[in-house]
């Protein structure tokens, strides 16, 4: 227990003094996960919006798929991306394995279904409400999608936050394709996993604390957005 208390205060010290190693790891984590979030939204949002407002054969099957893919196990995604990027794989010539780019690719694959499926849900609900008015105005599909995205922006921001939360907290995919290389591909989750197994609890705990704060921060942001939106009649 002594050990724990000591590590804990040391961990806090690391955070308070902005330990450079710590900063580097946290910085890379945020960079990788934010990039993945942006990419997942750029792909997921338009797909989700299109599925939300259009009707075509196979649509319900596609929705079931999108929803199912939200639960992709990170290690499976990691393995898949590894196989593509490894020297023998089809994309091996790019030399991306064990780089931050590989990690961004893996996390993007992991969370694009989340961005797509959740925004589909958000926009479809809104579309149900607006449909008659849109139909009366004879709006084009593109104009409908633009209006829905704008009016659903508060909910869509929470979708992006959910995707970010999932990517920043996952370890399985980034450890396989990133390899937790010091100063290169070390992110919070992989560092925690490996430092803990090596017995360096101090670093693991400071990173754990930061991760926890990020998770809490995301939740706080989500509630703030929800509250603001409903208070001002935009929800």
């Amino acid at each position, binding site marked *: 227990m002594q050990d724990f208390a000591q590590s804990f205060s040391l961990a806090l010290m690391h955070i308070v003094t902005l330990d450079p190693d710590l900063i580097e790891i946290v910085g890379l984590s945020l960079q990788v996960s934010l990039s993945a979030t942006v990419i997942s939204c750029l792909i997921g949002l338009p797909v989700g919006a299109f599925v939300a407002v259009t009707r075509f054969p196979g649509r319900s099957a596609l929705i079931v798929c999108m929803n199912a893919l939200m639960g992709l196990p990170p290690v499976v995604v990691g393995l898949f991306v590894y196989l593509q990027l490894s020297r023998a794989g089809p994309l091996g010539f790019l030399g991306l394995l064990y780089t931050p780019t590989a990690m961004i690719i893996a996390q993007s694959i992991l969370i694009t279904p989340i961005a797509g499926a959740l925004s589909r849900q958000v926009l479809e609900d809104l579309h149900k409400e607006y449909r*008659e008015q849109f139909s009366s105005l004879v709006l084009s599909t593109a104009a409908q999608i633009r209006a829905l995205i704008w009016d659903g922006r508060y909910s869509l921001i929470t979708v992006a936050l959910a995707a970010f939360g999932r990517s920043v907290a996952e370890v399985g995919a980034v450890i396989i394709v990133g390899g937790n290389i010091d100063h290169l591909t070390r992110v919070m989750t992989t560092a925690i996993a490996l430092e803990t197994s090596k017995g360096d609890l101090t670093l693991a705990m400071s990173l754990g604390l930061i991760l926890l704060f990020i998770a809490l921060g995301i939740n706080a942001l989500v509630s703030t957005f929800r509250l603001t939106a409903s208070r001002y009649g*935009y929800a």
Partner: protein
Amino acid sequence: MLERPLHLKMSGAGGRSADAGVSTRVSDASRHPLEARALSYAADGKLLIDSIDLSFAPEGISVMMGYNGAGKSLLLRLLHGMIEPSSGRVLWSGEPVTEEVRRQQAMVFQKPVLLRRTVLANIEFVLKSRGLKDPQQARRVIERVGLSDLANRPARLLSGGEQQRLALGRALALNPRILFLDEATASLDPASMLAIEEIVRQARDSGHKIVMVTHNIGQAKRLADEIIFIHDGRITEQGSADAFFENPASREAQAYRDGVILTHENTGELNA
């Protein structure tokens, strides 16, 4: 002459002033009559609109009346081209209704659907959808329906009556040739209702065709150039307001006018 509340600053009854969306005279409405031919709509194996043949007077205000569930809202949706009939057709100047024609129509729904935006932005949205970008136009429309003081309020925080006024303003902003109103004054206070009636009358006077549904008999008497009574998905009579209220031809219309609930006993039909 009706007294107008101060917050409803409206132009004079002539509707000639250039300050509002509806005051521009639309092109000769008599060349664009609206018709339904053998129009039917069925859902869940039930015939809700039963082969209706109907020609609207080419100008003026046509008021549709009928019991709850008679099919009035459904018929408006069909006429506006929002839903496909099971059989039969809706014609405009003898031609099938195209998207281009539908763009010249507007509808105010029984339950107004407002965007999650401010009052002003709601109007600007429909103006933009028609490629109209005059920034003053939206303000004029808002003023016309008496919502100037609320221009920057989120539309969904308005009261029920204010929402209906906004929905009406939004429809008028489109300067439609045909305006469909589905109980558009149902939750307005008496002053606002009279003010809206005045706007509707002005719209009629400047050449817009109005097809409206109301359960308010006083309103029907004040506005109607013709009355169409619909019962069980069928038109049972169509004629002048005077004729309709003084001497309704069908038993259902008479019962409706007198506020009698239809039952098996008094109609001998299935109207529990």
